[in-house]
């Protein structure tokens, strides 16, 4: 038990019936942003409790407070009925809380064993700690079926294995409560199922699990109870068995949601994009795309489904002109240079290819630049934006104002820095820049990641409208739902290969899920 217990006024109920975790009135603000507002929640021991909400709803902040990363401005935490202060991670660990972060917290060039003992060593010398950990690891393996080579170096392990190391780290510290933050983001559906089996096993052993996700399917499959968060507030906590995806979705966004996109059947025309035998090797010498063939026709949306990291990003980068590849790509019947010597993002744009990148904050926008500077980005050498040898700032600003109006960007202030817009409005700035160029081919990656529901509908409408103008669209998304709703045809990527193509009207999540795991075709 934690030394931080304030034993004065205990609200201990009979053992077993006390919640494993109880939060009362937690509030937290970051500067002017209220991330958590008066949140209360009870999680019973031996259950899997889901927390669902959109990006930015405050889920991660809440869990970070529970893990001692942040101090709540207001509110109380009770662990097994005892009021507990959690000023830092050390206290959280002492209170029996373990956390598996979305981005793993592993030292890449350390072995599994070294990572597991880090911070939980016994004594000043390493040797005894390491041999003790080796023994304990073996026991944990037996108990939970979590096999992993203790002497493997982390950077040589796959993501599924690395996640296992994270879980073992928590168990090694004798955690009774395990928090997992978006654990399936990097996993295939099969790996995710395996993870859920492990979680079931842990629950059977009496562990309490909090699963944070924005995926309804996982909540329905894996949890006993679920809490919904919206804009920093906890809107409901219900038994999973007594709710439905539709109800949860409504609770998440605060109104009825259209889970599908209104669009007419596609009328594909001539081939705009024709990829043959494309291979991409990354800087580290790893082959990421292993010979793919793909066509996109005018007037159709082709969706690329797949778990993140299976070559989709590299495909977009090659088409966007900033990664080298071998193979053959034609756009409008013209060969693209893939060597990187004759081409770059600019020459691709000149070929009528527009690109909404997967990560708008890293690639699509310069966050410190104003909206008008961002509107010229990538097209800044366009003659329309020049006057003599100088940039025509006036023309760019005028253009930005018009675009902001047409795409309903709020606030419509061209001088405001990109970082000061919400995720949805940032995406609208990028989208306006790329779509208004009237490209023949639009590449669009993760169009609605971190975007609020209202903007999602608008963005989907814009994409469909571009298709209906007879343009070719290549859509990459890790959200199967989005692919199914938006794409006319779906190609699934796994380990650098295209595992199969389906008409989206004739397939479902299950079939695609198998392809995403590299099974079938």
């Amino acid at each position: 038990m934690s030394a931080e217990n304030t034993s004065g006024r205990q609200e201990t109920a009979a053992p077993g019936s006390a919640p494993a975790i109880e939060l009362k009135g937690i509030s937290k603000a970051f500067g002017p942003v209220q991330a958590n507002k008066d949140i209360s929640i009870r999680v019973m021991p031996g259950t899997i409790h889901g927390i669902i909400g959109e990006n930015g709803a405050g889920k991660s902040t809440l869990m970070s407070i529970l893990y001692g990363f942040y101090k709540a401005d207001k509110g109380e935490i009770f662990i097994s009925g005892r009021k507990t202060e959690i000023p830092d991670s050390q206290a959280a660990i002492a209170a029996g809380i373990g956390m598996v972060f979305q981005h793993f917290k592993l030292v890449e060039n350390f072995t599994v064993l070294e990572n597991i003992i880090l911070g939980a060593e016994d004594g000043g010398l390493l040797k005894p700690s390491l041999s003790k950990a080796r023994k304990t690891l073996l026991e944990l393996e037996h108990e939970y079926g979590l096999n992993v080579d203790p002497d493997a170096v982390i950077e040589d392990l796959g993501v599924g294995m690395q996640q296992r190391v994270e879980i073992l780290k928590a168990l090694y510290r004798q955690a009774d409560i395990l928090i997992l933050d978006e654990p399936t983001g990097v996993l295939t559906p099969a790996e995710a199922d395996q993870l859920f089996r492990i979680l079931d096993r842990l629950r059977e052993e009496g562990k309490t699990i909090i699963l944070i996700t924005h995926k309804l399917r996982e909540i329905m499959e894996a949890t006993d109870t679920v809490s919904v968060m919206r804009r920093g507030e906890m809107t409901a906590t219900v038994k999973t068995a007594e709710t439905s995806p539709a109800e949860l979705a409504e609770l998440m966004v605060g109104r009825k949601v259209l889970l599908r996109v209104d669009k007419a059947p596609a009328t594909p025309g001539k081939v705009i994009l024709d990829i043959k035998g494309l291979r991409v090797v990354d800087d580290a010498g790893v082959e990421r795309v292993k010979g793919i063939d793909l066509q996109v026709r005018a007037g159709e949306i082709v969706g690329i489904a797949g778990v993140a990291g299976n070559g989709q990003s590299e495909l977009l980068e090659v088409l966007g002109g900033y990664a080298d590849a071998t193979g053959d790509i034609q756009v409008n019947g013209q060969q693209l240079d893939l060597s990187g010597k004759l081409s770059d993002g600019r020459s691709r744009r000149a070929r009528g290819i527009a690109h909404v990148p997967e990560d708008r904050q890293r690639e699509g926008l310069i966050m410190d630049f104003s909206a008008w500077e961002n509107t010229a980005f990538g097209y800044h050498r366009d003659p329309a934006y020049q006057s003599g040898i100088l940039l025509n700032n006036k023309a760019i600003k005028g253009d930005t104002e018009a675009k902001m109006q047409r795409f309903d960007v709020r606030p419509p202030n061209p001088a405001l820095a990109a970082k000061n817009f919400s995720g949805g409005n940032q995406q609208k700035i990028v989208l306006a820049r790329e779509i208004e160029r009237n490209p023949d081919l639009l590449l669009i990656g993760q169009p609605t990641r971190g975007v609020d529901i209202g903007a999602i509908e608008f963005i989907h409408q814009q994409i469909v409208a571009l298709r209906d103008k007879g343009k070719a669209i290549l859509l990459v998304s890790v959200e199967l739902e989005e692919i199914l709703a938006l794409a006319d045809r779906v190609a699934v990527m796994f380990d650098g290969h295209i595992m199969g193509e389906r008409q989206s009207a004739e397939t479902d999540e299950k079939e695609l899920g198998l392809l995403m795991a590299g099974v079938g075709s």
Partner: protein
Amino acid sequence: MEVMPKWAEVILVPLISLLLAAVLSALVIMAIGEDPIEAVNLMVTGALGSTYGWGYTLYYATNFLFTGLAVSVAFHAGLFNIGGEGQAMLGGLGVALACLLIPWPHWTLAILGATAGAALFGAAWAAIPAYLQAKRGSHIVITTIMFNFIAAALLNYLLVNVMRPQGSMDPASARFPETVHLPTLHDLLAPIGINFSKAAPANVTFLIAVLACVLVWFLLWRTWLGYEIRSYGKSEPAAKYGGISPTAITMIAMLISGGLAGMMAINNVMGEAERLVLNAVEGAGFIGIAVALMGRSHPFGVFLAAVLFGFLYQGGAELALWTNIPRELIVVIQALVILFTGALDNMVRMPLERLFLMMRRGNV
């Protein structure tokens, strides 16, 4: 929303940092048993109280303008060029070669040739670290530091073994011919009836430095090249996406930076010493770092900071002359400015941000 209004960011933060540096400097002066107010008086009289003082202040400021701009341009591309010192040394070599090898008929032509030589040699010295950064990923901070030492060794070798005139004991080049003598501010201002000190070294290069300020501003904020440099400095992945070549921008930004640092040599080598001596740069390359940090890498800010440091240098020399305070006081002040405006920036910023946040909450 921004936490702080722009004026606070641009003016208040640097001003407070500067104030902190000034207070600490005053404490240092007091600690060595001198009167800081008396010291400031001496510095002001010595540096600004006569055209002679102004002549030195502006002479130093000219050096710092070039090196400050050099560091700033690299900063905008996200590169920390500590190699201004070495680049300025090589710039000196370029000037010396231009002045000694070519028989210029008149200074107006000579200054063009010398500028070209200075910029070329400075840029060339920056080119190697730039190339290694762009193509091999070698950390440019370390390579430029190393290149400062290599430059010093190279110049030492050349001045002792190659460029030293026969019979001379000085490790220095021959004196430049009379025809390349640059007009001082005295020469320039006399025709319009202003009597400027004849002895002060400030010369026509000051005007070139000011021109460089304006050109750098145009480059950075009014041309697509400057736009690309700033984009790359803010985000390399975005630059790649936008069709901006990291290699090209790293090279171009460092060539401009090295060229600017090298151009300092028109002032100190051609304008003042009129021959190439050992250690001609005297740390001006490093002061460029302080100047760029204080000026927030903006040419106008760099101008103000360069003049301030020019004042400090001339004032410091006067102090050393009349009091027990050695010239090294300036090095201390320079260090404090770098510390507060650069490394401890957040120490000033964090409480200010909190203050503005409180004020906003109060208003709501």
